[in-house]
């Protein structure tokens, strides 16, 4: 008897892949319109993905804030917020998307307030000139979304990894998923699919993300024929804990630098030198994230790094009175934010204690994916019935994210949820094609069936070797070419040899899941490398040592990658402009940062 194409099947109007900040919001909004929505999440609701770990701040312009009863600044306006976002994103952002982001930022915030999300403060964030940040807690945000999803009776498949999309008659018509607990293959028939799967941070050795973020959405969208945009734009966060292992990947030192105590923090190299004075003598450690990250990496390259490849976060230069003063600042911050981040309760007090006697090793962690699935302002991909919202999508930010991702995911989630009803009206279910189902089943089962090949852990280490060596904050042509050759060889030849090397059980098989995730991470990395290689300039969060200028005459364009017979094919495309003209001229990276992020520059450091 022929092997079944799937073990069980479910039918819904809208499949939302991902359950958190954007998935939850998309699901609620589609369900509000009376649609039958199914969420499939690789983890458990409110306990997976990026949103739980958010600070979190929700941005909105002052006028919209006032309308919601928040202490907004009446000099502000939606238009002014748009202008700041476009300028600070170095003009690559899709202006229609930015306008819609600003409009829906307010709508998303209104929803969340109505559902009971707490407000701690309303203040200046992202070093903006005006207060645009509603400060809340990421953990509370996602729990509120979970409650709303439950209240509405939305079905949720947890611990279920969507592996590939199904299409028929040129439209998205569902997906195939793997139930991680049972190992069953699940066919999901849907009239529309919304991808809300986050970034691909796990492709990089040193990242600040949850384990789920493996580029599943980007990779499955690409395989289904969707396009990617801005894949070279990867945001790093400096001052992320490198050591000890227990604190690794925590961004607490970075958060500390953003508080009132920030100006007292020094970053030192292995010679004890406050190296920022050579890179940005005016603002020093309070320079922009990008400049601090580049400076730290140069120190490591020149042999002045810490044992685990970073620099030192130091407080012990302070006098005893100074330390008490800083402690007081931290303590106030801590007391006020105790239930905001779990790290504040245990890890932060320990790190503060450590910092009294030793310097903390910190480094540049891959934090956020600026690029992703190419969508328009309605979150539509090029494939009818396929939407992408939140971090897995691209095109909003341009070359650097300068406002909060929490706002993006909520706003775009709501846009996607609202877009589904109109599309679905008149669209019938399409019975999935048997060949397609069989190919996906084979792709899922192959690593389990193979008895020899490359174990996924070995493959992952090799991939991380490539990112550690070539895909760092500072990039250059030769290294990118080596990375591209290695990654494309791994994807074309080596991925077909991935195999589950120990337990062949289908239930909670980590190796099996990793094999599937590796294919996705590899594809995202390859596309990111291809785009990095093509962009012969430096812009925003993207820095090429061999092309250190920001070149608006040639490079104020986006990289777009499409699927040509299964291979990534790159073209350049002008940004979508509505009201803010594109700049001209060529300037050094430092000049560009200074002009582009004038409102982001902070005051002079206290010495």
């Amino acid at each position, binding site marked *: 008897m022929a092997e079944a194409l799937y073990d069980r099947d479910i039918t819904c109007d809208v499949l939302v892949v991902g359950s958190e900040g954007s998935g939850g919001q998309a699901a609620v909004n589609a369900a509000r319109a009376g649609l039958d929505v199914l969420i499939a999440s690789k983890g*458990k609701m409110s306990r997976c993905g990026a949103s739980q770990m958010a600070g979190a701040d929700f941005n909105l312009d002052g006028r919209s804030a006032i309308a919601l009863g928040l202490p907004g600044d009446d000099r502000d306006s939606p238009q002014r917020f748009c202008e700041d976002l476009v300028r600070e994103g170095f003009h690559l952002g899709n202006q229609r998307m930015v306008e819609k982001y600003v409009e829906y930022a307010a709508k998303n915030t209104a929803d969340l307030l109505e559902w009971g999300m707490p407000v701690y403060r309303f203040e200046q964030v992202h070093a903006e000139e005006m207060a645009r940040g509603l400060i809340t807690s990421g953990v509370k945000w996602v729990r509120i979304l979970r409650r709303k999803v439950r209240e509405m009776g939305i079905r949720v498949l947890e611990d279920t990894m969507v592996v590939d999309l199904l299409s028929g008659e040129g439209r998205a018509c569902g997906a195939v998923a793997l139930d991680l607990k049972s190992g069953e293959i699940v066919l999901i028939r849907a009239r529309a699919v919304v991808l809300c799967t986050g970034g691909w941070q796990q492709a990089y050795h040193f990242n600040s993300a949850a384990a789920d973020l493996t580029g599943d959405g980007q990779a499955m969208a690409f395989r289904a024929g969707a396009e990617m945009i801005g894949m070279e734009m990867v945001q790093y966060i400096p001052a992320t804990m490198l050591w000890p292992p227990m604190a690794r990947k925590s961004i607490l030192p970075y958060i500390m630098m953003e508080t009132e105590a920030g100006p007292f923090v020094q970053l030192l190299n292995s010679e004890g030198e406050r190296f920022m004075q050579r890179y940005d003598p005016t603002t020093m450690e309070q320079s922009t994230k990008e400049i601090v990250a580049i400076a730290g990496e140069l120190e490591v390259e020149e042999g002045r790094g810490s044992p685990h490849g970073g620099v030192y976060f130091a407080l012990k230069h302070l006098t005893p009175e100074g330390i008490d003063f800083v402690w007081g600042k931290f303590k106030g911050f801590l007391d006020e934010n105790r239930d905001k981040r779990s790290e504040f*309760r245990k890890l932060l007090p320990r790190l503060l204690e450590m910092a009294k006697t030793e310097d903390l090793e910190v480094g540049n962690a891959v934090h956020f994916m600026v690029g992703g699935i190419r969508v328009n302002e309605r979150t539509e991909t090029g494939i009818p019935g396929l939407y992408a919202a939140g971090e897995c999508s691209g095109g909003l930010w341009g070359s650097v994210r300068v406002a909060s991702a929490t706002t993006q995911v909520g706003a775009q989630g709501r846009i996607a949820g609202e877009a589904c009803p109109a599309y679905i009206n008149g669209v019938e279910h399409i019975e999935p094609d048997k060949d397609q189902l069989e190919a996906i089943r084979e792709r899922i089962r192959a690593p389990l069936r193979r008895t020899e090949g490359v174990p996924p852990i070995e493959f992952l280490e090799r991939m991380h070797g490539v990112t550690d060596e070539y895909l760092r904050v500072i990039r250059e042509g030769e290294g990118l070419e080596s990375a591209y050759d290695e990654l494309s060889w791994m994807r074309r030849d080596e991925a077909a040899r991935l195999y589950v090397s120990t337990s062949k059980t289908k239930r909670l098989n980590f190796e099996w899941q990793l094999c599937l995730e590796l294919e996705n991470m590899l594809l995202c990395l390859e596309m990111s490398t291809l785009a990095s290689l093509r962009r012969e300039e430096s812009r925003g969060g993207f820095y090429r040592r061999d092309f250190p200028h920001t070149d608006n005459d040639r490079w104020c364009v986006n990289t777009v990658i499409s699927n040509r017979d299964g291979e990534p094919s790159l073209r350049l495309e002008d940004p979508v402009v509505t009201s803010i003209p594109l700049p001209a001229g060529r300037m050094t990276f430092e000049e560009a940062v200074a002009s582009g992020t004038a409102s982001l520059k902070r005051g002079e450091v206290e010495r």
Partner: protein
Amino acid sequence: MSHPTINVRCFRYDPETDPAPRFQDYRVPLVEGEMSVQDCLNHIREQLDPGLAYCMNCRLGFCQRCILKVNGKVVLACETAVEGDIVVEPVNASEVIRDLWCEST
């Protein structure tokens, strides 16, 4: 450079194939600096036995999915520092799906 090595005794059980739960010992080197129970489990999975089932997500106390019994006490694996030998069990052994992962994980 050699580091002290500890014994990590892990609960192993596959209700579909094993007649009864058993314990398996792994030797894990402690590196300089604090290591958590989760770091030890990650070491086992990455270096010794990728077949060990347990849940890891955020590593920093947010998701709380790494809730386990360590030396008889219910803790979050990511927030619990390791100083000596440990015994690691699922939080509820009567509802194990596989190894350290149970229904309420």
